């Protein structure tokens, strides 16, 4: 027989158990993420005289930095678009193929993740230099009549970064497509939808949440990438991450670097929230219909 007191204690325990399980993670998160970000915010908004918006005003008043922010967002958009175009069909086929090689192929596509972005970017540098493979190839095929310089251009950064982030897009989308029952496509077809229509109306429609999530992941990683832009892009393809590095490490202007970092962070957060709201809103509309 259980006494009422013991039962009450059990209920209280059941209430606290999740909080207790959550505590270690919350602690690490607070100490190593929230606190440093808060300090960053504090540094960016103070100077010798106390609170100030001077660093943000400096950013706002200088078109050079607006250009960097614009270039960074453009880079993110271009990389996201390329990884989507290449990733959606690849992930779909990998999720649908019946062959026993499917698992191996998926492993193969994610293999680049095991190699550091620095190493992969070096690989692209070899291809991109004026007398590199790409330049020679384009000339041999007659697409160019003089050596092509892809190194130290935005185009080079976009190509290299898309390659670096493509595996993440494929992995995310593969999971999404795998979770969509193939019978739904078959059902649509038996109701008279051509295969391509079934794909659009059912599979892609159901995968849209996952596609948005994958895009968001790639976009955030692209606009905060450092190794690839600094190696492949150099000074001519300055983006937010490299600008922050320049301010903090080379010019030792910590407050301004912190302001740039905060602006980047806020941009990513705002975009995430906007996407989230977009998804949520659609979900509610559907339920209400």
């Amino acid at each position, binding site marked *: 027989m259980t006494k009422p007191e013991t039962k009450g204690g059990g209920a209280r325990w059941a209430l606290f158990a999740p909080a207790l399980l959550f505590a270690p993670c919350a602690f690490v998160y607070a100490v190593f993420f929230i606190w440093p970000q808060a300090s960053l915010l504090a540094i960016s908004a103070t100077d010798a005289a106390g609170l100030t918006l001077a660093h943000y005003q400096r950013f706002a008043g200088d078109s050079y930095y607006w250009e960097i922010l614009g270039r960074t967002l453009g880079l993110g958009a271009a990389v996201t678009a390329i990884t989507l175009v290449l990733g959606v069909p690849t992930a779909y086929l990998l999720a649908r193929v019946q062959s026993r090689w499917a698992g191996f192929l998926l492993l193969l596509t994610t293999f680049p993740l095991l190699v550091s972005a620095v190493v992969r970017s070096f690989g692209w540098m070899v291809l991109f230099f004026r007398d590199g493979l790409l330049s020679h190839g384009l000339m041999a095929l007659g697409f160019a009549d003089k050596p092509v310089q892809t190194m130290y251009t935005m185009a080079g950064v976009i190509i290299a970064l898309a390659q670096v982030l493509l595996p993440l897009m494929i992995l995310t989308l593969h999971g999404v497509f795998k979770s969509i029952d193939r019978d739904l496509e078959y*059902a649509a*077809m*038996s*109701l008279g939808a051509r*295969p391509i229509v079934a794909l659009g109306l059912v599979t892609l429609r159901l995968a849209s949440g996952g596609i948005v999530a994958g895009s968001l992941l790639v976009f955030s990683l692209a606009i905060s990438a450092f190794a690839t832009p600094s190696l492949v892009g150099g000074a001519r393809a300055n983006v937010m991450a490299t600008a922050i590095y320049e301010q903090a490490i080379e010019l030792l202007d910590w407050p301004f670097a912190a302001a740039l970092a905060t602006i980047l962070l806020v941009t990513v957060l705002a975009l995430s929230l906007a996407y989230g709201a977009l998804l949520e809103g659609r979900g509610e509309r559907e*339920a209400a219909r």
Partner: protein
Amino acid sequence: MDIQLQNLRKTYGSAVAVADMSAKIPQGRMLALLGPSGCGKTTTLRMVAGFIAPTSGSIRVGATDITTLPAHKRDTGLVFQSYALFPHLSAAENIAFGLRRRGVARAEREQRVTAMLDKLKLSGLADRLPRQLSGGQQQRVAVARALVINPSILLLDEPFSNLDAKLRESTGLEMSRLQREFGLTSIFVTHDQTEAMSIADTIAVMKDGELQQIGSASEIYERPANRFVADFIGRANFLAGRILRREGQDAVAELAAGLEMRLLDPGAAALPGAQGEALLRPEAIALADHASPGSFKATVEQISYQGAIANLHARLADGSAIVASVPPEDARGLAPGKLVGLAPKPAALIWFAKS
């Protein structure tokens, strides 16, 4: 339109999923594909639906060969085992999906969807998403979605397997009523023999991809083509034996170590000395006195009362087990350990030669 499957075959590498399946389903009739798990029922159905390309053989609907026709042009209504309702569309939109694809105008579409919702008693649920419906309601939406397009063929892949026993029976009967009302030629996959017998006109029994027998429920039950069919459909006792002599068309065999029994028309292969087994259905056994001639002497082991009948589990002199279904009042007064006589009813024994 009638459906004709001719030597339909599907192999995956060296594995044979369906081997030489042939069947003809007349207009407006229902064929049940019946068999144990993995025997190739779903594969056969999906070849008819157009999702799996046959390795060889052909499928005809009416006069047209549809073997290579893509799925969306086949005009089939399909109800999946898992229903496969579109999770992002409401019940009404799910049902309207096929009509939209066929370009049916809005007014007619709405009227047909409403009529179908009424027919399947879903009227109040039109705006619910599939996840807001119970299993039985989802199943009815799936059926409505398949019927509303007026398909020439209706295909059902174990559509009732997720329902509880009671709902299953009533939905099954409702389904076969609708199928007859719409005059649909249909194929129905199941591994439940009672379900197959109660709603299909013809039953095809399959095993390991091979068709074992095709015929009406009574043909398959009363004249099973082989031991597998006899065992799979209903309950069966098999009594090992040997043919003693022929008597014209008939033969006399010695069964279960001792008793001589007459077999009606056991086939030409049942020559004296041939070994084999005789099928004896539990309900074709009557209780008799243990000393009466023409009955098996058996020791009662267990009596299970089923309501309408009582199942008597007993053991014969040679040690083999036997089950007899008898009226409960006959079993009254029996107890484990008691000696009884089990008398096969006339013409109840069916001979299967040892292969």
